[in-house]
């Protein structure tokens, strides 16, 4: 079998023009820009807190998508840069350096240096080995934070004073901080849009598609991948700065491996290798987390099946589903979810939660079996790998 025919089956059949999801993405960005207004109207300050987190994580997810979605590099240690960005400003603040003009660029530069080191080691490997090495090196950084007793060890460290932009912008003013994050997210997405379509981006995408061929036509693939890896690390470092500034707190938990896993889930859920995919994914992930965890602390039992369903039925993630014209089904699913949630809120019936928890895996199993049967019956080749 030639490589071409294998990949042909995993191709998303485009029902709508590619820029349709861009339109959806721009609308979503516009709505996100209105969040502080909604927060005032509904008199719900928590809304702003939640969405500040969403916007910051979206920056990290967009940066991961650059190497994961466009470069095919499954980095399982991306949260390490969130930690490095956060620890840089946390440690500087601890020592009395509050000027953002020093803190922020330094955090990004140190993230870049660490990404260079991790990239130099990990990019020598491929596939599962790459995943494992990035995971291992990120854990190394994690335990470094754990062992930094001067800076709180595994308890973390409070940041007593926020970064100071010298009167240009007051980060203690929550809407201002939100709009700063929002603008940085918009800038990151636009930056990625330019980069992936540039010559550099073509090399990155070509290497994902067929790296052996890239070498024979004359590309030193490794150094382009390393560059992308470093750029992604630096952007993620910025997300770390914002995270630490927002919560006034740093701890090794920021860079725990499960946080790296969450980032991958956000990108996959939203759609790998799509411009706005990571944004869709982050919004969906964190909203679901918020809502489900208000039901039960075992919210991942419900979240897991949802994720599996997305992987099976909506390949290409939310972005892919929008592209194939499944926007209606997405909205219906979302609607159903809110109806159940609404019943729960109105009647406050706690039995709904365990019922859902038990029903979800059984329902999932049934769906998988049904799907398998249908697939065999039609004898169509579905799923030719996820790369």
């Amino acid at each position, binding site marked *: 079998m*030639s*490589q*071409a*025919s294998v*990949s*042909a089956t995993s*191709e998303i059949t485009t029902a709508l023009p590619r820029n349709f999801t861009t339109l959806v993405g721009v609308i979503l960005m516009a709505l996100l820009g209105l969040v502080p207004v909604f927060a005032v109207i509904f008199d719900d300050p928590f809304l702003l807190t939640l969405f500040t987190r969403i916007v910051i994580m979206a920056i990290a997810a967009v940066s991961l998508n650059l190497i994961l979605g466009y470069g095919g590099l499954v980095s399982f240690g991306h949260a390490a840069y969130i930690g490095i960005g956060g620890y840089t400003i946390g440690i500087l603040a601890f020592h009395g350096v509050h000027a953002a003009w020093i803190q922020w660029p330094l955090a990004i530069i140190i993230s870049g240096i660490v990404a260079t080191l991790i990239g130099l080691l990990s990019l020598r490997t491929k596939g599962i080995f790459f995943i494992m090495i990035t995971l291992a090196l990120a854990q190394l950084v994690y335990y470094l934070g754990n062992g930094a007793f001067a800076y709180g060890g595994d308890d973390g460290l409070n940041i007593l004073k926020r970064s100071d932009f010298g009167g240009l912008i007051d980060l203690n003013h929550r809407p201002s901080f939100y709009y700063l994050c929002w603008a940085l997210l918009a800038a990151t997405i636009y930056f990625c849009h*330019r*980069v992936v*379509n*540039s*010559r*550099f*981006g*073509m*090399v990155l*995408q*070509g290497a994902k*598609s*067929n790296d*052996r*061929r*890239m*070498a*024979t*036509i*004359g*590309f*030193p*693939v490794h150094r*382009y991948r390393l*560059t992308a890896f470093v750029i992604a690390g630096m952007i993620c470092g910025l997300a770390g700065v914002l995270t630490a500034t927002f919560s006034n707190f740093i701890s090794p938990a920021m860079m725990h491996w499960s946080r790296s896993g969450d980032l991958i889930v956000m990108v996959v859920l939203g759609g790998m290798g799509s411009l706005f995919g990571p944004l869709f994914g982050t919004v969906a992930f964190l909203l679901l987390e918020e809502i489900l965890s208000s039901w039960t602390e075992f919210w991942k039992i419900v979240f897991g099946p949802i994720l599996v369903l997305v992987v099976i039925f909506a390949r290409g993630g939310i972005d892919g589903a929008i592209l194939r014209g499944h926007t209606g089904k997405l909205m219906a699913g979302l609607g159903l979810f809110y109806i159940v949630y609404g019943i729960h809120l109105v009647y406050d019936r706690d039995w709904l939660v365990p019922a859902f928890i038990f029903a979800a895996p059984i329902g999932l199993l049934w769906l998988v079996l049904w799907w398998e049967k249908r697939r065999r019956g039609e004898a169509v080749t579905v799923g030719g790998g996820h790369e």
Partner: protein
Amino acid sequence: MSEPVLKVANLVKRFGGLTATDNLSLDLREGEIHAVIGPNGAGKTTMIGQLIGELRPDAGSIHFMGRDITSMPVHQRSALGIARSFQITSIFPNFTALDNVAFAVQAHDGHSFRFWADARKDQTLRLPAMAALQQVGLGHRADITASVLSHGEHRQLEIAMALATKPKLLLLDEPMAGMGPEDSARMVTMLQKLKGSVTILLIEHDMDAVFALADRITVLVYGHSIATGLPDDIRRNEQVRQAYLGDEAEAV
């Protein structure tokens, strides 16, 4: 006679107990089509692998235009002007045909640390790519996603990508593999047009194509060259007949 474009001397490559390339020597003259034939397992693709730089020979040397390239990495050889088409189609399936060739053009247009301008609107990439596609007769399929092109078109695309790097030496590993007679004939016509403008090392099982195209032929058996010469000499060579051509030789 000018210096050979490619000079392979006493090349040896072993895989465990198997000697895939056994003291092989070969000269390629400028502008010629030099066919390498031999039964399956004779070490033809292993030889290509060493010429392109994916395999490191155990002994011997490879000189390209007077320069020792024996231990040079793949992408540097490509920059010097050695291009290869793969025996098994190796393209970028989820990109258009034109994108595929534009990759090859871009690889030879300086470094690619350019992060801002849209590469798909860059005429210094798109125009030469289009020219190479037209050269192989794929101009009308430029905007088609490569994965949906036919097998014959994939083979043409392979050659277009190799040509787009403006090579001085083209290594063609069974370009007609799996092609129907019509596609094969078209490929022969195309290669005939290329003749003289680029030196070609052709590995091919289709004897009609080989004798129609080749200026000289080398016969490889068990990694060793048993004969090199003009097509007529090879046809008459008794040793070659026994080793390889067999009944087919009488038919030719």
